[in-house]
């Protein structure tokens, strides 16, 4: 038992994550080719516009469901909304936000772009704290669009183009189908003014996504409404990111490696549940924590992966000295 523990805690999380991400990427982007269909309540951006999708992003069906006439929506059709929602919750509840860090194809793509930048030897950008505090609210605006725009359609206040307004501006619609050789989404729709504006925004956001994630780690996750949606239900999830504030020295190592620049991870020593709305549950913080048990990932109150001094030294290659000839 102890050996398994040590093995996990000393594991090279980066490699593990890379392969898992790749697996999920193939599963979600090319799943259709292998007859994999995980339904359409998947809590990540595995875009439904991808023809071979192995399980569809929950937002596409959700928007369609919410776009029904309001009286239908609030009585009979509520059942189908509920079923979709409960399925979403069931998927989500086990892995919590780890969906973002390990399964989301859009997140994986960003990590790959980051890898490319690293190869090119270009340093990354960061937000300042005030910028961070303002920008992080955008994802809730996005979530509001996801929910309110289709309801507006259902109420007859908005035209039909708004039905999937978020999908129209979501970069995943453009980028994901590229992987199955479908470029049909890379076009502007001039049929109506709304469609034109939305598709233009979509392509601008796609451009921003590509350039942004090149310079900023996980650039898009900061604005992702799915992340906001996750956060609302993350308290009930089984997988938890926990912190033992007594053990924390606030050294900031976790903050340094955090792709999402979450300050609380280092500075908050009061909360035990340290998952924040921006978190993508990549567990890099746990891997980078040099204190025994200060940060740990729990499932059902069982420690799954915890920070250890030994594990830290191993991962940072500080557990041995590179012998040099000179």
């Amino acid at each position, binding site marked *: 038992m102890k050996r398994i523990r040590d093995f996990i805690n000393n594991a090279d999380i980066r490699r593990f994550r890379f392969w898992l991400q790749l697996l999920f990427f193939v599963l979600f982007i090319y799943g259709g080719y292998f007859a994999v269909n995980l339904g359409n309540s998947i809590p990540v951006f595995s875009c439904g516009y991808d023809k071979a999708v192995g399980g569809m992003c929950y937002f596409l069906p959700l928007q369609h469901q919410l776009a029904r006439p309001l009286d239908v929506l609030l009585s009979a059709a509520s059942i189908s909304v509920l079923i979709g929602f409960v399925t979403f919750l069931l998927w989500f509840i086990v892995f919590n936000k780890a969906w973002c860090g390990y399964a989301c194809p859009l997140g994986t793509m960003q990590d790959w772009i980051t890898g490319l930048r*690293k190869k090119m*030897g270009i*340093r*990354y950008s960061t937000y*300042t*704290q005030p910028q961070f505090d303002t920008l992080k609210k955008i994802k809730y605006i996005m979530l509001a669009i996801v929910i309110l725009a289709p309801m507006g359609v259902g109420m007859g206040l908005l035209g039909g183009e708004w039905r999937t307004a978020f999908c129209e501006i979501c970069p995943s619609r453009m980028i994901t189908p590229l992987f199955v050789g479908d470029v049909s989404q890379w076009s502007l729709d001039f049929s109506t003014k709304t469609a034109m504006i939305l598709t233009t925004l979509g392509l601008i956001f796609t451009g921003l996504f590509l350039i942004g994630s090149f310079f900023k780690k996980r650039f898009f996750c900061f604005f992702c409404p799915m992340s906001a949606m996750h956060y609302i239900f993350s308290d009930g999830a089984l997988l938890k990111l926990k912190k033992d*504030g*007594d*053990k*924390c*020295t*606030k*050294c*900031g*190592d*976790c*903050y*340094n*490696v955090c792709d999402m620049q979450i*300050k609380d991870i*280092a*500075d908050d*020593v009061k909360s035990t549940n340290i998952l924040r709305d921006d978190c993508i549950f990549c567990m*890099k913080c746990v891997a*980078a924590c*040099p204190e*025994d048990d200060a940060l740990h990932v729990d499932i059902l109150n069982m420690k799954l992966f915890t920070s250890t*001094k030994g594990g*830290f*030294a191993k991962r*940072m*290659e*500080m*557990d*041995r*000295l*590179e012998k040099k000839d000179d």
Partner: protein
Amino acid sequence: MTEHKIETPKERQNRHKAMEAAAVLEKIKHDFKEPPKAMDYFYDLHERVHCKHEALHSDKAKVGTMCIQVPSEIIYALDAVPLRLCNGFYADDEIGSDFLPSKSCPLVKATIGQFASNNFSDKPDIVISPTTCDQKAKSGAIIENMGFEVYDMEFPRTKESHESREYWRRSVRKFTKDLSENLNTKLSKKKLKDAIKKVGYAQHLYHKLNILRKDNNSPILGKDMFLVTNAFFFDKIDNWIEAVEALANECEQRVKDEISVASKRSPRIVYTGSPPIFPNLKIPLLIELSDAIIVADETCSSNRMFNDMVSVDEWFVNDMVDSIADRYLKGCTCPIFTKNEDRKRRILDLVRDYNADGVIYQAFAGCQVYEMEQRSVLEAMERAGVPILYLETDYSPSHLGQLTTRIEAFVESLKNRKRRQ
């Protein structure tokens, strides 16, 4: 007929220092049972440096540091050697008294004294003075007046705010650039990465040793640990690493063989407060001579110097420098910070982790910040039900009797407590 040689002041000072050092080393070596074999390297090292005044770094640029906040990784990456100038000699303290008010911290006085007498075995080429506590910050200027090259490194007095982090990162960036110009060496990605890993490995070894001290059969005494960590101030890092590797292995073996340097009933002590720096190991020695054992400490000459490690996400110079900066500010539990809840949490965590029975808090008379923080730490410990003894000392050997009585009484009460449990 023997030739009578007139002793120069410098020689006299060195003789005094050597005597002081030798006396302490004698005690350390012989008054305790079974020191680890690997400790011989450190006994020898201290003897060579402090008694024989042997120069260790004649081949490299030497950067003197006035406080632990000066990033040693960067100094190593610039092919220089960091030398921690914090001084524990009473002989130097007396000299320094002429330059500072009488109620100053003996450590600062001793450091100034050493500069005043310009008596170094390894003389620093440049002195880095971070603006940590008032006395150290001001002494930078005094040292400069004595003709040394001093570089002030701005250090914030709060660490919670984002501004302080950015401020300190800027300080470190500037320091890196200026030092690189000063030493005329270029900083490269590889060298910095190697330096981080090397220092990281040293820290890792320290942690490895420390973890062994958690065992009920303590393999090593606190006074030995202080010698080891003190050696990091001035030793060649490669030699130090080799010696500590050996020490760690020996201690590991001891834990396996259940060899203990203290009896089972010896109270386990967490030591906190002003740093014990060789040869001022008065309090640790008194504690361990009273049959207690120091299992952990929270001081800047030991634990605080090694505890927090650098972690880097992307191995770019910009990133590494920032990460290094963070490690020296954010995790620091020095009482100079305005608020210092972290220190209390840290002490409590050490008590829990190392299964300690009590805490001994030493403050140098004149070290205002430690003296000021004493009350709140005492309160926090009382609330947590941890016995604590507060001692105010200086470098002079005069109050030894009184200190002995207090420490022995405290240790005795801890023993009673332990027995009752």
